[in-house]
Every structure is written in C-alpha cells, then in structure tokens.
C-alpha cells in the first residue's frame, strides 16, 4: 500500500481524570522523537474528573500546526461521547476503539479496529486497569503508523521519569497492544510516520512555562496571583524556577510570591511593587482583567510600571473556562474608565513568550505604565516546538528613575509629571529615597503631582499621556511580515493564529490568491502595520473572536483613506483555529 507520510490527524476521545493525558503525550513525544513535525492540542473540560476530553495530534511535514480539518484516526475510549464521536467521522476514517466499552461501532464505511483494552490491562495490573487501558491505544497507534520502538521507549521514560515500575508496566502494555494489533488488525492503515532529521536542539514546551522563564530572566521581583484557568501554570512555573534561578548567594529569594485574595488585590500588589521600584507581575485571564480594571486606570494615570499577563480564555463572563479565544484584546488595550491606552505585547510563538516575558518589564519601566502580555489557552497550555530560548539581547531598562541628589540636580525644573525631555516621559523618584517626595494619587494632579482640578492642567496631562504611549509604537516589537510582490491581498493577524497561518496561506494560494501576511506583535500598533496596509489592495484582519477587535482598533486609529481596504474575518467557537474554517471565511468576505 502506498502510504501517506507524516500527514495525518489523530483525535483521542476520552474522559478527563482517566490517565489519558499521559498516553496522549507519549504519542506526541514519540512522533517528535522521530523528527516528525507534530503538534498536540488538549480540548479539556472545566472539571477535574469524568467529563469528555479530546486530544488532537496533528503530524505535518509541511509544518502545519492547526488542528486538522478532518480526523484521520479516531480513538474511542469515552462511552459518554461514543455515539456523537462516531457520527461525526468522515467515511474512510480509521477507528480504534476499546471493545470493553461494549458499545456498537456500526460504521461499515470506516476501518473499525477493536481491542479489549481494559481486559488486557487487567492482566498487567487489576488495580490500574482503567489507567493502563490508555496505553493500549498507544500500542495500536504505534503499530498502525509504524512508530519506532526507541521513540516510544524514550517518550515513556520521559513521561514517567524516575518511576521504574511505571515505565516497565506501561512499556509492557504498549508492547502487548502492538502485538495484538499486528496479529488482529494487519496492515490496514494508509498513514505512516516516517523519521525525519530532527534538529537535536528542538524541544516542546508550553507557552505559559516560556512566559514564566521570560519573567525569571526579566528580573521579576514580585509575583502576585490568584488562581484562574488558563493562567495558573504561569505562576506555578515561576514558583518552580525561583529556587533554581533566583536565589542570592545566601539562599535568599530575589522574587517574592504572594497568592492574593482576589485579582483586585493581585493588581494592587503589582502597583505597590512598581511604585516602590520593583518589578511586579501578575498573571490572570479575562475575568481577572475585568476585576483589575480599577487599578489598571491608576497605573495609567499615576504612571506606575507593572506587568499583567492575560492568558485569554473564552468569554464573556465565566464563558468556556478551558477553551481558547482572542477575546480580551480591546479590553486590555483600553481597560478602565475614562480615556486610557495600554501597551499590549502579543507573542505568537513560545520563543516570543520568553522574549516578551523579559521585555515587558523593560517597557513598563521605560514608559512608566502598565504593560500587558497577551497570550491564550492554545499557546499557553499546549506544547509547541522551539530550538531553545535566546538570552536577553539588551541590558535591563530601568527607565527614568532618579536615584541620587546629583541626578536630581542635573534636571532643570524637576516635577514628577513634568515632561522635561519632550518624549512625554517624566522622571520619577522612589519611596525611601528622600528625593522629591510626593503623594501619588489617582486624582487630577499638576506637573508637580499636587492635586489639581484646573481644566488646562487636566487637558495637558491627558495629552502628554497620549503622547507618551504613542511614542512607544515603533519601539515595541515590529510586526512579522511575509510579503508577496503582487500586493493583492494582505492578512493581518496576531498571537496564536501564527500556528494556523501557513496552512491558511497555502489554502488561499491554492485558490489563486496572492497573499501577504502581517503578524501584529504589539499595541499600539507599529507604523509598519500601517505601511503594510498602504501597500495592499485589500487587507483582511483575521482573529479568534466574534467582533473583530483588532479590526475595530485599526478602524479607529488608521487614516481614513485606508479604512475602506479593511475586511474583518472574526470567528470563535472556543476551539483552536482550524485553517480551512478561516480560509473559507477569507474567501467569502473577499469574493462574497
């Protein structure tokens, strides 16, 4: 049989809390070990045990990382979703199912491959049979795709590091399953996994851990946090790395960690830390930003540095807590009452999660303002490939902080909020220094920080703030542009959509469209974004939300003559973006 090499999507339907995550990661990592370009997505419920979970593994020599548009191999372990899972499959799908579920598999148009997984697992360990049963589908998949034994062993060892008993039991289960499949199923699979040269440098990591390491290398002094999915692993990862990377010679920690009573308090602590001259950060998700909004305005108006990482989940309200979205962009950009505008950094890869992790503190201190890191569940909690993080290329930027009397004397006409340099950024002094003390406040204040309700003073203060943040545009990360000469269609996108863009681009090129892409990496947007729009006839702004939030921001801020060029493709169902879904919508909006 001619095989389709390294181009398939596996969907595993299980219930959470049954140990299936280990089995899924073993499949993912064994393919990765073989050098097969692979990505994994965990679609999990907001629940600890018993609700349906799907894990999608996509292998693609072309490097496509979006979940595949169709499932090629379906693994059926969950009785609760059995019927629906079965009904959703296209003709020709390979179905691996647990015979012990004793449920019908009446799809004559598919290749149905059963195995008594739970009974077989009972042979190894009656107690662990429910957990071990998952390893049998690993063995079944390994047989069908031809996953190498070495790769499986290495993935199992990685998964159960140091637990020799678990390693041998699981390897035995996989091996039994492989033999069973070989004897009972035969060579029925048209897909195969074939080894590729794997760079020895690459590894898989979750975006949230990359953010955490970025913060560690950014010199974070204080982490305050309130647990919320999907951001908690940022905090937990920082806590995990502090003893290894952030202790002084005497074993003292150089980063304080406070689990706050709520998100309001977490934001207040970041504000206090920034005011006192430290690098404070909190991580949260949309509901947390809603609560923090009061403080966010104070950061902006009192001009205090701080960092908040928003790992987006599906809103509004409690929404779909374990699903992904880019639904918080406009909120982050303009959070809090009155006129505000905040710097938002938007990583699209795990490398950028690390880089923006440390850069966020530099921007916050440089511009004396709040900086958002904008991630999402897809990038944050799924594993992505990197060839290793790069050490910060620049020294820390601590901003305009006056630390000595000599420095103070060198500034003519000092005032905490007086723009003596013409860049909108004034100089500040720190509590404890005794230098030019003022009472910071969220009320109106003049250039010396004194309470004022004077109309002209208020007007000028707000104009300066606008100028200050506007001045960050071309200092913040520039967009990543992949440009075709034709200048026909441009696509503007951001964040985790990076993982689907190559495939979307290919699908559109297949339709004869010449497509350039521009990935926005920060707000306020860089001047190159505007130039990109200038150079293209029609520009689609593509994003994972309902209302087209970046589209709205662009329409508000772009010169009027560019606005007719803009089209919005905004779609969100809680799941990571499938390429065809978006490609079709782009075609529809441009041709429709």
């Amino acid at each position, binding site marked *: 049989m001619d095989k389709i090499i390294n181009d398939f999507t596996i969907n595993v339907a299980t219930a959470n809390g049954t140990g299936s995550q280990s089995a899924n990661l073993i499949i993912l990592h064994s393919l990765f070990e073989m050098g097969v370009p692979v990505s994994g997505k965990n679609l999990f419920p907001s629940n600890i045990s018993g609700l349906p979970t799907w894990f999608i593994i996509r292998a693609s020599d072309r490097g496509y990382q979006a979940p595949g548009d169709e499932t090629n191999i379906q693994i059926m372990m969950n009785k609760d979703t059995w019927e629906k899972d079965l009904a959703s499959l296209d003709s020709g799908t390979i179905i691996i199912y647990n015979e012990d579920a004793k449920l019908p598999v009446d799809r004559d148009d598919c290749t149905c491959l059963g195995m008594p997984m739970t009974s077989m697992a009972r042979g190894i360990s009656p107690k662990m049979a429910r957990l071990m049963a998952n390893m049998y589908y690993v063995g079944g998949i390994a047989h069908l795709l031809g996953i190498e034994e070495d790769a499986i062993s290495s993935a199992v060892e*990685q998964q159960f590091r140091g637990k020799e008993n678990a390693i041998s039991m699981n390897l035995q289960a996989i091996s039994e399953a492989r033999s069973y499949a070989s004897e009972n199923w035969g060579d029925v699979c048209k897909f195969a996994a074939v080894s590729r040269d794997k760079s020895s*440098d690459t*590894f898989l*990591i979750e975006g949230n851990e990359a953010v955490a*390491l970025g913060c*560690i*290398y*950014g*010199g974070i*002094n*204080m982490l*305050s946090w309130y647990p919320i999915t999907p951001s908690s692993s940022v905090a937990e990862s920082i806590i995990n790395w502090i003893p290894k*990377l952030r202790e*002084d010679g*005497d*074993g*003292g*920690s*150089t*980063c*304080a*960690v*406070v689990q*706050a*009573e709520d998100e*309001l*308090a977490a934001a*207040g*602590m970041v*504000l*206090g830390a*920034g*005011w*006192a*001259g*430290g*690098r*404070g950060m909190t991580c949260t998700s949309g509901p947390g930003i809603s609560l923090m909004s*009061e*403080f966010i305005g*104070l950061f902006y108006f*009192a001009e205090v540095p701080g960092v908040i990482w928003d790992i987006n989940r599906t809103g509004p309200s409690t929404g779909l807590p374990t699903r992904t979205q880019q639904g918080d962009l406009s909120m982050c950009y303009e959070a809090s009452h009155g006129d505000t505008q905040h710097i938002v950094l938007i990583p699209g890869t795990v490398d950028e999660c690390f880089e923006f992790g*440390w850069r966020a503190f530099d921007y916050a201190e440089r511009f004396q303002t709040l900086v958002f890191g904008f991630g999402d569940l897809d990038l944050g909690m799924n594993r992505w490939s990197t060839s*290793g*993080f790069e*050490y*910060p290329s620049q020294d*820390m930027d601590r901003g305009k902080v006056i630390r000595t009397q000599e420095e103070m004397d060198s500034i003519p006409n000092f005032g905490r909020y007086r723009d003596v340099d013409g860049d909108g950024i004034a100089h500040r*002094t720190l*509590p*404890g*220094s*005794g230098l030019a*003390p*003022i*009472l*910071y*406040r*969220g*009320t109106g204040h003049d250039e010396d920080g004194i309470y004022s309700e004077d109309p002209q003073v208020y007007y000028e203060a707000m104009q300066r703030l606008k100028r200050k943040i506007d001045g960050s545009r071309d200092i913040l990360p520039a967009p990543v542009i992949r440009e075709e000469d034709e200048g026909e269609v441009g696509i503007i996108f951001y964040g985790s959509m990076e993982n689907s863009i190559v495939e979307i681009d290919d699908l559109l090129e297949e339709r004869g469209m010449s497509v350039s892409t521009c990935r926005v990496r920060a707000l306020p947007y860089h001047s190159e974004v505007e130039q990109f729009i200038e150079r293209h006839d029609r520009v689609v702004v593509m994003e994972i939300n309902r209302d087209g939030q970046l589209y709205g921001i662009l329409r508000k801020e772009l010169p009027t003559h560019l606005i007719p060029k803009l089209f919005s493709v905004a779609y969100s169902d809680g799941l990571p973006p499938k390429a065809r879904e978006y490609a079709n919508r782009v075609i529809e909006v441009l041709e429709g």
Partner: protein
Amino acid sequence: MVKLNVLNLEKSEYKGGKSSLCPGCGHDQISNIIIQAAWENGIKPEGIAKMSGIGCSSKTPAYFLAKSHGFNTVHGRMPSVTTGANMVNKDLSFIAVSGDGDTASIGIGQFIHAIRRNLDMVYIIENNGVYGLTKGQYSATVEKGSKKKKGTANEQAPIDLCAMAVNLGCTFVARSFSGSKKQLTALLRAAMSHRGMAIIDVISPCVTFANNDESYRSYNYVKTNDEVLHIVDYIPHFSPLSEVEVPEGEFSDISLFDGSTLRLETVSDDHDPRDAVAALRAIHEATQEGRHVTGLLYYNPDQPTATDTLGLSDTPLMGLSEAELRPSAESLKEVNAGFRAR
C-alpha cells in the same frame, strides 16, 4: 529654643500641607498626632511610606509628613498596594490611614487578608460612622440606634473592626479617640515600634454630619462613654526606663520590637492584652452598654510578618542590581539543555 528629636530634627520637618477638611474635624487632630508621634519616635521622614485609600480620612496623608513618599490609592485597596511595596522594600515604615467606609465596607476583604499576612504596617482607621465625602451616609461601623444629624437612626448591626482584628489574630489591636491626645499619641508611638500589623481604630467625630448628641460617635457622646482600659505611657528605647517616673498604682510593661516600652497603668479591672478572649469580652461588654472601650486591646508579639515567611534576600528586592536579578547566560544554556534532555 527650638526642640529637636533624637535625629536632631525639628517637628516642622514632619509637617504636611494645609488641610482641606471641615474645621474641627477629628481627622485633623489625628494628623497632628501622627506628626507628633513620628517626630517623638525619631523616625526618618524619608523612611516612611504614607498609604491611604479613598475618603476624607484618606486625603489626610497630604497633611502630614511632607518629606515622606505616599500613595493615595483607590477605594478600599490600600492594603494590597502596601503589600506590593512591602514585598519589594521591607525596610520602609508604612503608616496607613483609612476610614470606616474604606475599611469596613469596600475594602473589608483586603483589610482581613492584610491582617492574615501580618503585614508590617501601622493601619489607622479614622472611624466616624459616616461617609463624609459623599455627604453623610451611614457606614458599616455605626452603632445600632445611633442617629446622625439628618435622617433616621441606623437600624443595622455594626461591624466592630477591633473585634474582627482580634479574631483574625492581628498582632496589635488598639482603639482610641481623636480627642484623647495623650492616649492616642502613646498608642500610635507603640504601634510604630511594633513589627507586624498594628491596627488603631480611632473614633473620630464627623463635625458636619454626625456630631449631634444622638450620634454614638459625637464628641460629647464619646467623652462621656469612653471606657478606658488602662492609662498608657510610651517609653522610647532611647530613653532609659530608670529615668521614667514609676506610677503609684499597679501597672504592667509591654516590650515592643524596637526596644521601647508601653506602660499600662491599671484603672479599675486589670486587662491583659495578651488574652484575646479578654479583649473580645471587653469589646462586647462595652458595646452592650453603648460605650466605647479604648486602650491596647490585644498584643501578640514576635509573629512572623508577611515578608518573614518568604525567605527573601536581605537586601530589599528593589535595591538589587541587574547582575543579581537576571540569571546568567550560562544558566539559560543549562535550562535549554535540561528541556532537550527531557
């Protein structure tokens, strides 16, 4: 001759701007006592951080200690801002002013959690039972049956912040009255010498909206219903005990963190401030009789503070250099290698 404190500073070095509160406001008396206490204790003004929330009371940090940095934050959220500042600079002396609206309503959660962490700060509640800045609505601390100048009497049960603090294990809990200059000065000086959360709930009459005799928080009412637990004298660590006059009656001494002493002279019943149950009994009995119990209610020294439990670097974190904050390039190579080996 101008009087100087142990730092050779005049009292004027501790003063602030002109108050914009109503003439006769209890809060202004408290501001003066803060100036007096900080000066007498010889605290460096630049080492103090003045913290507040929102409300009449929270405006007052503008009226004292002009040489200290401060932050007039948002309503009810002063404790969290103080926590963050404390985490990165544990050497600052935090003196915070809040009100009954700020602490007992919108900010009660942060108040509770700051106590739970034993945040190292002085937390003064200027407690008048009304929202002054919004023109006289009742707050959550006002007594049942108390009546402000306009409107009907309050029908809801009050929140007693001292009782709550005692229950939460707050390490220093006192109540006083803005009109009791000697008592409040001694208690405030002791609070400044304490390490950990020191709460002083100060009854501070609102002269504009609730200084009528039917108000349980008017000058007249408090003066005639003040149940003083003990007479308090503060003896600073830089003034040897032998030079202090020994009172004639019974007394007990409390040793404070910085080596200073608070002397409690027995009035009628002996109150042991180490006894949380006794503190609660004193509060509840006074409340039942429509009286305000004042003095040092509860004291529980030597408890770890919010920063003690974190094993932080000795240097305040905001003072660390880039070399101390950013791990080496070599370490990142090891981190990457570790992931590759997984």
